[in-house]
């Protein structure tokens, strides 16, 4: 377009020279009567629920409040937190290795990974916790020796190594790894194949491509399902109370068993589990923001 034409257009009354004044729109929004009615009904029902709990003669609220910060409960809270974090750490590391093994070209590794997931995902967590908690009944001593002979280099009492806490961590971690393996595998498959291909074309080995290019991009994809897993794991950790795992659930059930205030102590557990879940959810959101680096314009 010539400069003369540009000038002519710019000077025309419809052009930029005389922009229309900015007039905000005032319109009547659609009223959502159905929403308002259902909201009102729900508020009434919720108020009734709160009232029935608060005024319930069967709940001794003072017992709830004094046990919220009881020493055993707070200690149990710490143990629950530790079990969750250690279990997830084991699950994440082992899960990444299992996922890589599953997707490798090595048939032996593929089979091991598939068998692992089949077993640890297939056996109920409660059963796995009981097995690890009672491992000494199966193998009273653990040690290093030559298989199919009586030669032992050293051995120790199983209960010395596999304390209740360690057994609980192992049970939760190995079970979690089976699920995390599937989560990570999905994440790796979600990364565009062109990414690794570009690395290979530059002369990188497939291990380098995995470590430097694919896995870092997997993080962004697996964070939401991993957050889910973490919250599930936190709640599943209450199952270790069956081997007296000293966690929050162990604490509230043992207090409840002595003062016969079962419901009050379950309310204590409810409160604390919700608090930790809320904290984890906030942490997850912050991590997701950080991991989406390079994906924001």
């Amino acid at each position, binding site marked *: 377009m010539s400069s003369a034409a540009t000038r002519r257009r710019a000077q025309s009354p419809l052009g930029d020279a005389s922009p229309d004044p900015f007039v905000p729109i005032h319109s009547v929004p659609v009223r959502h009567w159905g929403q308002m009615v259902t909201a009102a009904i729900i508020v009434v029902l919720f108020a009734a629920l709160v009232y029935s709990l608060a005024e319930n003669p069967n709940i001794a609220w003072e017992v709830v409040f004094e046990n919220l910060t009881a020493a055993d409960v707070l200690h149990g809270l710490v143990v629950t937190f530790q079990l969750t974090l250690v279990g997830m750490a084991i699950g994440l590391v082992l899960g990444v290795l299992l996922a890589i093994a599953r997707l490798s070209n090595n048939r032996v590794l593929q089979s091991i990974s598939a068998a692992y997931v089949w077993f640890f995902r297939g056996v109920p967590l409660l059963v796995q916790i009981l097995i690890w908690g009672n491992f000494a009944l199966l193998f009273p001593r653990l040690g290093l020796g030559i298989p199919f002979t009586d030669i032992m280099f050293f051995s120790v009492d199983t209960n010395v190594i596999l304390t209740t806490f360690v057994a609980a961590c192992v049970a939760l971690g190995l079970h979690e790894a089976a699920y995390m393996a599937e989560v990570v595998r999905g994440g790796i498959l979600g990364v565009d194949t062109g990414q690794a291909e570009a690395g290979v074309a530059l002369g*990188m080995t497939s291990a380098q491509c995995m470590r430097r290019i694919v896995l870092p991009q997997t993080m962004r994809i697996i964070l939401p399902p991993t957050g889910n897993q973490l919250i599930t794991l936190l709640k599943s950790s209450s199952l270790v109370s069956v081997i007296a795992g000293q966690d929050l659930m162990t604490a509230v059930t043992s207090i409840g068993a002595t003062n016969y205030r079962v419901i009050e102590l379950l309310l204590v557990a409810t409160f604390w589990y919700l608090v930790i879940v809320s904290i984890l959810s906030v942490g997850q959101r912050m991590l997701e923001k950080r991991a989406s*680096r390079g994906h924001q314009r």
Partner: protein
Amino acid sequence: MSAELQALDRREFMVSAEGVHKQYGSNHVLRGIDLQVAPGDVTCVIGPSGSGKSTLLRCINRLEVPDAGRIYVNGDLIGYQERDGRLFDLNPRALAKQRRHIGMVFQRFNLFQNMTAIQNIMEAPIHVAGASKSDARDRARAALDRVGMLDHQDHYPLQLSGGQQQRVAIARALAMDPALMLFDEPTSALDPELVGEVLDVMRGLAASGMTMIVVTHEIGFAREVGDQLVFMADGRVMEKGDAREVLAHPENPRTQQFLRAVLP
């Protein structure tokens, strides 16, 4: 042709593909490709989609494994070691070594999304060639400068336009000091107004004496920059020769038909 080619002759070519076949199940994608590329030449490969152009390119750096035939790059047999008249598969490490000096530019750029432009370029020099970080940075900046992207070194790929991403991708391949550059439809995924900037970079590269094999639909580029033109259809080389000569006077009826369809 492959039988007559002496080992001595192969060393005169940057690339020598001899009787290359590739099948995906019952789909016979390459049906005996013979192609020689002289050092410093630009070879443009054109043809209808599905004719096997990209597959041939991907066989040269072994992103695809041919089912028959041999490919030599710089005199090296790609993918195998020949001892006592038998072929032994190269292990992954040796294969990676062969790929180091074959640069590749993809249709969809394939820049590492988790790295900035300069990190993309420094990655292979550091982790493949073993360069120091400062040396790699100098090389990366030189490569970025060459494609006119120095100002964007700290941008992530998704913050760049398609044309800019492709220029960074070219710089990434250049930083490994390649003897040969493969371009797989480098402008096909670009908006029309961005094609020119990428072709400009490729023109400069050709002028500097880089050996290039370019799979493309840009007939104008082939005519202007190409030394050799290869027309492929149905997994075969239908016609090849001097680029301007083939484009002006195509002899094969398929070539004539294709050029009539794509030329204005």
